[in-house]
């Protein structure tokens, strides 16, 4: 379990993380979603004790990260932008990590196998593809068999197969009862992976709810109606108490499905040229929700 309480980080007069509070529960995948620059990585660095909060606190399983005697056995983390030396082999990278936390040497081979890079374990990681580097990063995160796993943008730069692999792994880790905290700027990816979402924008929590609830709330749909009798149709539908908005030559109708709209229009003898259900994508919902914060961040620079 990860608990952040009024976590704040300022750099000079810029506030990167602004009074963020959330709880990441075990047994499910919690997505940490926000546009680039929203404060995700800064928050994750504070979780790992790498950056010092300006105020507020964050604990992992009830303790500050730095207070865990063997932190890699408590929290496994995939850090953004490969925290690796390009000249060291994958096996050696895992070896020093194991040594630092008193983890048996045998675990190195286990995690190499687990992420499927045993065959290239003795190659220098500078030669690794992005996907292999990411797998090594995940091997490093799992070396201490930790109850809490933190993955910062794990699918960045991965091919579809790699993305699916990370998604399955995250779900499996949660199914095993671990706490899984995954950051991403991709709403669509999080909708598939996460059970719960913490949405952040401009350093503030914008939403903290189950993914299904977020989708139901924000992914609104409407019916697109085109008619040569545009105005008459609009008047008719408005009289039925529906929310009708005119956009150029089309009407966007909310509050009724296409069948219902078609029947109403048909009974009144008006003509229809188009009747389409339009689902606004999750990505759109996410953009709408975070739009203000992105614009503000852009303007303040």
């Amino acid at each position, binding site marked *: 379990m990860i608990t952040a309480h009024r976590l704040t980080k300022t750099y000079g007069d810029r506030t990167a993380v602004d009074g963020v509070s959330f709880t990441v529960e075990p047994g499910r995948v919690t997505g940490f979603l926000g546009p680039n620059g929203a404060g995700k990585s800064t928050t994750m660095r504070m979780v790992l004790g790498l950056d010092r909060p300006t105020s507020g606190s964050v604990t992992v399983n009830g303790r500050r990260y*730095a207070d865990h005697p063997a932190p*890699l056995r408590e929290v496994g983390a995939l850090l953004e932008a490969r925290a*690796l030396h390009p000249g060291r*082999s994958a096996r050696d990278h895992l070896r020093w990590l194991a040594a*630092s936390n008193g983890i048996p040497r045998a675990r190195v081979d286990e995690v190499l196998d687990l992420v499927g890079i045993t065959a290239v374990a003795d190659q220098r990681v500078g030669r690794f593809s992005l996907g292999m580097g990411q797998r090594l990063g995940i091997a490093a995160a*799992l070396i201490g068999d930790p109850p809490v796993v933190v993955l910062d943008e794990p699918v960045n730069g991965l091919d579809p197969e790699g993305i699916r692999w990370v998604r*399955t792994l995250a779900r499996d880790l949660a*199914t095993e*009862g671990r706490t899984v905290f995954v950051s991403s700027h991709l709403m669509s990816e999080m909708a598939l992976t996460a059970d719960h979402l913490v949405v952040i924008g401009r350093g503030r929590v914008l939403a903290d709810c189950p993914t299904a609830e977020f989708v139901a709330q924000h992914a609104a749909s409407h019916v697109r109606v085109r008619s040569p009798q545009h105005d008459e149709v609009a008047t008719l539908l408005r009289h039925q108490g529906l929310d009708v908005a005119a956009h150029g030559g089309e009407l966007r109708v909310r509050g009724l499905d296409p069948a219902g709209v078609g029947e109403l229009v048909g009974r009144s003898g008006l003509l229809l040229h188009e009747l389409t259900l339009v689902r606004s994508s999750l990505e759109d919902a996410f953009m709408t929700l975070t739009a203000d914060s992105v614009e503000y961040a852009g303007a303040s620079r």
Partner: protein
Amino acid sequence: MSAVGTHAWTRVEAPAAPGPGATLRAEWVKFWTVRSTPWSLAAMFLLGAGLTTLVCALSAEALARGDVGEPVGAFATWGVVFAQVTAVVLGALVVTGEYGTGMIRATLAATPRRGAVLAAKAAVLASTLFVAGTLTALAGYLGGNWFLDREGIGLALTDDGVLRSMVGSGLYMAGLGLFAAAVGLLVRHTAAALAIVLGLVFVVGNLVMVLPGAWGEWATKLMPGNAGSAVATPESFNPLLLDPWVGFAVFVAEVAVVLAVAAAVFTRRDA
């Protein structure tokens, strides 16, 4: 340990704290698994032992005739002047190599106690440089002295300052490496760290000699490269320098101050 995805994960027991040597072992593995370490040490040996041997071979005859005007003892560890560059490079890379790659975050996530990280890095670096520096000086002395002996001006290991200069070379290399590591910790950039340390030792250390009067004399005596290097040679080319152990004490104090500042900054700064 459980395998991901095959069965329910349960914690059997709270993880025990790793033993006191864990951080040291981790740093030891890190130190020896990048190529810059063997390359730097090989370069130190070749420059240190090789140049000493070469220069002794070339100047033994002139030294024997007495027309060089320099003490024979100054030649016994002649190559150290150049070998010290490799100690600086290795010391800087141990730290800046981690900042340049982002590795430092992995290091501090694995061991949040930053003081322990710094102590382990310093111990691994200093002990390796001490052994390498001593062996380099010894090999150079053995090689060079073979030529000096042929001209009848050889030095015995038991002669005044000879053994001290062997061990002193190791100590000086260790100190110089720590100095570079501390500067690396402050500037977090390889090129900047190398420029500062090599500039101080090779350029500023020699430039201050032209300062007038007592000012210049003391500045020369106290510059880290000048104060610290006297211990690494049986007899110095520069008679102005402090006595070997006095100079080395000054050097150690200087390194300690920079290290203390670097440690204070390191423990407070965001990674």
